[in-house]
């Protein structure tokens, strides 16, 4: 074999994931690919990707079972290898993959569950921002609330589902629990993930809360975020909502509101 190194690496990399490794391989690589040891690399690469997805989407794994999960993960991994070497964050596009994956349609909330697993991962590895303490917000005058916004903590993530009680579905399947679960109310629901003191903390989130956070993310003032929340849910208890978000550690600081951005309500 006397391929240039880059040509060798192109061919070896392609053969690792090909259905038939030798099919498109250059002549110089054939003797390598014919050896039994080549399968060790093929297996290790795929297993590494599948193991990482299974570790990063434990709730999906629990809902579908080991065999189904690993088969689906193998299909995704072959199509989308990790773009980063830290496998802790592999699976960015796995929720989208599940949303379009025909065999997943029997569990119509599976992609939503995957999005929350993904949000948990992002929250878990986010930067260690300071926490905005509630008194800083309570002290603001109405005039200040029109010009001041809330900066989201780096670890704050949320996911709203119009169709599914996603907090109930996710949280009861995320981990083993000895508690008798409450009856599920089959209505739209959101999940809020924050990291107030080290570990990721999970809570249910209302539609008003999701709209409030989405507005904050665009740089809206508190006043504009309140209007967004009321527009999503006219009867929302705004004071209770802001206290819930502050207590959960959703924000890191006050910031001057950015004008002209308030109406972008989607994250």
């Amino acid at each position, binding site marked *: 074999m006397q391929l240039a*190194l880059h040509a060798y690496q192109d061919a*070896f990399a392609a053969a*690792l994931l090909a259905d038939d490794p030798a099919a498109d391989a250059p002549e110089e690589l054939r003797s390598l690919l014919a050896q039994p*040891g080549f399968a060790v690399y093929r297996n290790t690469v795929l297993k*590494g990707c599948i193991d*990482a997805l299974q570790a990063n989407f434990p709730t999906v794994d629990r809902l579908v079972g080991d065999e189904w999960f690993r088969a689906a993960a193998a299909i995704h991994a072959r199509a989308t290898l*990790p773009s980063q070497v830290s496998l*802790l964050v592999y699976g960015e596009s796995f929720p989208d993959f599940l949303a379009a994956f025909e065999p997943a349609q029997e569990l119509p909330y599976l992609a939503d569950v995957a999005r929350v697993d993904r949000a948990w991962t992002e929250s878990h590895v986010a930067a260690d921002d300071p926490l905005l303490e509630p008194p800083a917000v309570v002290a603001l005058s109405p005039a200040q609330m029109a010009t001041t916004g809330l900066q989201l903590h780096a670890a704050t993530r949320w996911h709203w589902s119009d169709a599914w009680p996603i907090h109930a579905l996710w949280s009861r399947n995320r981990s083993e629990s000895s508690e008798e679960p409450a009856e599920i109310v089959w209505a739209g629901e959101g999940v809020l993930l924050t990291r107030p003191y080290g570990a990721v903390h999970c809570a249910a989130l209302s539609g008003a809360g999701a709209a409030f956070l989405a507005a904050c993310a665009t740089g809206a003032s508190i006043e504009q975020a309140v209007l967004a929340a009321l527009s999503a849910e006219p009867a929302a208890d705004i004071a209770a909502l802001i206290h819930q978000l502050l207590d959960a550690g959703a924000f890191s600081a006050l910031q001057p509101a950015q004008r002209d951005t308030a109406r972008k309500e989607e994250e």
Partner: protein
Amino acid sequence: MMLMSTHAMLTGGLGLKPQHFEAADACAAPGLWFEVHAENYMVDGGPRLAWLERIRASHPLSLHGVSLSLAADAPPDPRQLERLAALVDRVEPALVSEHLAWSTWRGAYRPDLLPVPRSREVLQRVVDNITCVQQRLRRRIALENPSHYLRFDAHEYGEIEFLVEIARRSGCALLLDVNNVHVSANNLEYSAAETLDAVPAEWVEEIHLAGHSADPNLGDVLLIDSHDAPVAAAVWALYERLINRIGPRPTLVERDENVPGFDELLSERDHAHSLLSLHQPLAQAA
């Protein structure tokens, strides 16, 4: 060579697993140190990094990379190198190491230590890449021999000859994985003992020990560096032969699958510690 002076206090180390954080932090075994895969801590923040800093406050730490792709025909990914440099600055590890292998190619990461032919072209590329890494980190790294599963017709160098030539030209040290030598020698039918005997003592900065398993289809003719079992007796014997010749080195016991409780892993590392303790004079002399 000034290898022993820095690391004389490190004897047997353990690969650190997240499920063992508390027990590891609390463990006061003499000479104990911990090694982590750097990639698992290349994050912006959060509880993992907090744990690593806590462990670092109680024990010496080694950062071991598995993905820098020193043998890829491309310079190290600058973003990844910056992440590694930030982690090195953050935890000030006693040791930093990587593999003679590649895994990221054209932007996609393949989680394995992929092989290269030992050619002059590869030699130059690896030397350039190690030089780049050492300049950015402002420190020497150690280069590990991976396990081999394939026979390359195109090798222009023997394995040890190649590693030593890379070390000589780049100024890096060597991390000798005794299990990888055993697995490779078994798979490609050569003598593990003779291979280890050929390693010049002065280049070896660290030693790795781990378990392997037989290929499920082919059995013992194809051993896999699976890190899922205790260190095999044959590997312990090779290890003793090695340190009897070159003297003590920081020695890591690795386990990445079928991970048992902390105490069971610690007893395995204690065996390495006691073998190293037979060579105390070097530690004192440094």
